[in-house]
């Protein structure tokens, strides 16, 4: 079953913060985040494994609450280059392989 992302779309001014949520009805082993710009392939952002680990680099970080089967992506002091569609990919705990089911996507637009 496909994870649900919220919001579906958000418009921010440069420098503002954003939070994108990803929620699954299944027990998860890992959550992956990707960003896709228009007409391009998705690009990897980060992976979180079960254990409530929080990761980040520069101004993009993420958390994973395995009990709630939820992950959140945090973008602080957004830059124009952050524009794009963000997808979470979830890996279920019981499958034993690394197949990802991607969410519905969140379209982020940063305006000057």
């Amino acid at each position, binding site marked *: 079953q496909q994870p649900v992302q919220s919001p579906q779309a958000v418009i921010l001014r440069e420098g503002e913060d954003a939070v994108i949520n990803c929620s699954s009805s299944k027990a998860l082993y890992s959550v992956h985040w990707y960003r896709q710009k228009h007409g391009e392939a998705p690009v990897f952002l980060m992976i979180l494994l079960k254990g409530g680990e929080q990761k980040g680099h520069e101004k993009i970080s993420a958390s994973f609450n395995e009990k709630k089967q939820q992950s959140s992506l945090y973008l602080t002091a957004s830059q124009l280059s952050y524009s794009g569609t963000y997808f979470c990919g979830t890996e279920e705990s019981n499958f034993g392989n690394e197949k990802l*089911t991607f969410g519905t996507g969140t379209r982020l637009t940063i305006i000057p």
Partner: protein
Amino acid sequence: GAGVSQSPSNKVTEKGKDVELRCDPISGHTALYWYRQSLGQGLEFLIYFQGNSAPDKSGLPSDRFSAERTGGSVSTLTIQRTQQEDSAVYLCASSLVGPQRYEQYFGPGTRLTVT
């Protein structure tokens, strides 16, 4: 090094024809994935290959779709008797595998248009 490559980049075909889409993964990546992305939509999982294990075909939408991976490297996705609803961008990705998990590297995609 070289990334994931896909060919052709664009394919226009008539309804009812068969098409073959090719993916060359990154050398050494044992996992290979095919996804489909319709205009403005998310990534729909199609099939997953991992080493010598039987592929996970759970995402193939119908028996008109098939895929193979030869020698653990190149993969071909075949769509028989194409329909207009098959029009989409077909993305291939490859990755390493392991308990710590690895990122998927995506190819540029093949844009399929069925007329």
